[in-house]
């Protein structure tokens, strides 16, 4: 009699669990590092692209900014316009051909961060635009410079607005890492491929793989949304009692 579905699930799990765990770990590490570095790249570019040159600025600043802007546009356009799997191949083998000794793991992080950066650049730009222009003018009117207003006023608000999108991006990345198996990094999908190939039990192996991805995503969704809630939930303010009486005294005085 042929061995059934559950037999193989148990068998594969028993035999390959250390590999699944290791693959899961690598998936999570690549996703977290790649996403965070990608966010940083995205923020830098998004900010740069929403910087305006003012009339009296000197020529070096103008040329510098417009060159940077052009480079950023090209970067965003290329990385949004090609599949990540292809980017992985091009970058990994391109670097190897150029003589760089780079591990598949580091290459994976680079690919993921570049991909994330390109998408985040647009998201950040959108987040910055979504903040009321009055906030910028409020800062300018006090003599704050563009970057001062950006860092202290606009970005914190833009950041708040794009958190749901950032969570989305992270979850997408968690799953997109599976594409990186093409350059041989031993993440979850790659490990599953190996496990499945041994006994030719593809269905059962990928069911295990799917369950692990699902658990990972659910776990991070819950975790991130509870962090978001705790950090940004509206809190009631308390009146500063030490200034209450004084105010009334002044009012009566008038």
């Amino acid at each position: 009699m042929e061995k059934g579905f559950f037999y193989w699930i148990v068998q594969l799990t028993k035999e390959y669990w250390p590999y699944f765990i290791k693959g899961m770990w690598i998936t999570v590490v690549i996703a977290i590092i790649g996403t965070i570095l990608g966010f940083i790249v995205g923020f830098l570019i998004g900010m740069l692209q929403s910087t305006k040159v003012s009339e009296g600025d000197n020529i070096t600043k103008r040329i510098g900014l417009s060159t940077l802007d052009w480079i950023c546009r090209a970067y965003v356009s290329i990385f949004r316009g090609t599949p990540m799997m292809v980017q992985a191949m091009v970058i990994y083998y391109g670097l190897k051909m150029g003589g760089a000794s780079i591990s598949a793991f580091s290459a994976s992080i680079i690919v993921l961060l570049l991909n994330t950066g390109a998408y985040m650049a647009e998201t950040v730009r959108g987040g910055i635009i979504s903040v009321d222009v009055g906030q910028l003018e409020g800062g300018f009117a006090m003599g704050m410079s563009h970057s001062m207003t950006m860092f202290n006023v606009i970005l914190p608000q833009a950041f708040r607005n794009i958190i749901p999108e950032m969570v989305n991006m992270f979850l997408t990345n968690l799953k997109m890492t599976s594409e990186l198996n093409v350059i041989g990094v031993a993440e979850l999908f790659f490990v599953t491929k190996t496990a499945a190939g041994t006994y030719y039990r593809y269905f059962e192996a990928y069911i295990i793989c799917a369950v692990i991805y699902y658990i990972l995503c659910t776990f991070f969704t819950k975790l991130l949304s509870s962090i978001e809630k705790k950090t940004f939930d509206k809190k009631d303010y308390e009146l500063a009692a030490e200034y209450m009486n004084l105010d009334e005294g002044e009012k009566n005085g008038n």
Partner: protein
Amino acid sequence: MEIKQDIIHSDEHSTNTPILKIDHIVKKFGTHEVLKDLDFSVQKGEVVCIIGSSGSGKSTLLRCINGLEKMTAGSVYFHNQKIGKDSKSINHFRSQVGMVFQSFNLFNNMTVLQNCMTGTIKVLKKDKEESKHLAIKYLKQVGMAPYINAKPEQLSGGQKQRVAIARALTMHPQVLLFDEPTSALDPEMVGDVLKVIKELANNGLTMMIVTHEMAFARDVSTRTIFMDQGLIAEDGTPDEVFKHPKNARVKEFLSRYINDTNLETEHKKKEA
């Protein structure tokens, strides 16, 4: 106009230089000319109310003065110093000339206290303690000190505007620009804000106030400018402008406001 310009030129040579000089400002949005060659000066201690119908260019004028709007031609002088077009000189100028907006523009990510400390810390490079001291001082003045821990979204419009005024005052501005400070407020709150501005006027702060509150303009200003279609239609003491307007357009505009003005005055009497 001719005579007025002569007066301005003679001012330049006297010791009493104007704090602000608006030098032939032109502002076009596309082909539409919003400000048509405006030219006047503001002396220290003057409270200039700018009135006129919507779309006459009042707000645009204020925004051009502190560089939030790029002017098409002309320039602004501060203590006879021409304000450069580069961000450094604009920022330095803005740090000495405050602005209060119709829509408050308090920083939504900060508490009331942080709002009032940001400018002094970041721009004037004062330490935290001194900044806090200044913030509390001016928040007390506008009656908002108990709310230091509140976020702007938790305040009413009138409260927000008073915080915005306190925030501007922490910078010790030499001139304070008000862009329709009460237009977004409900009638009950208008009084609170106007009272604060009136106190500032009594303290001798130089101000330019764009407003639709005619009674307030008449009572508080030392000089009233009536703008019509991008031009100054009338410029004089409130008495001259409100009681004996020479320009036909001004007469027509003010006659429409007479009823409102009476109402407001009554409202004020009740308050007092």
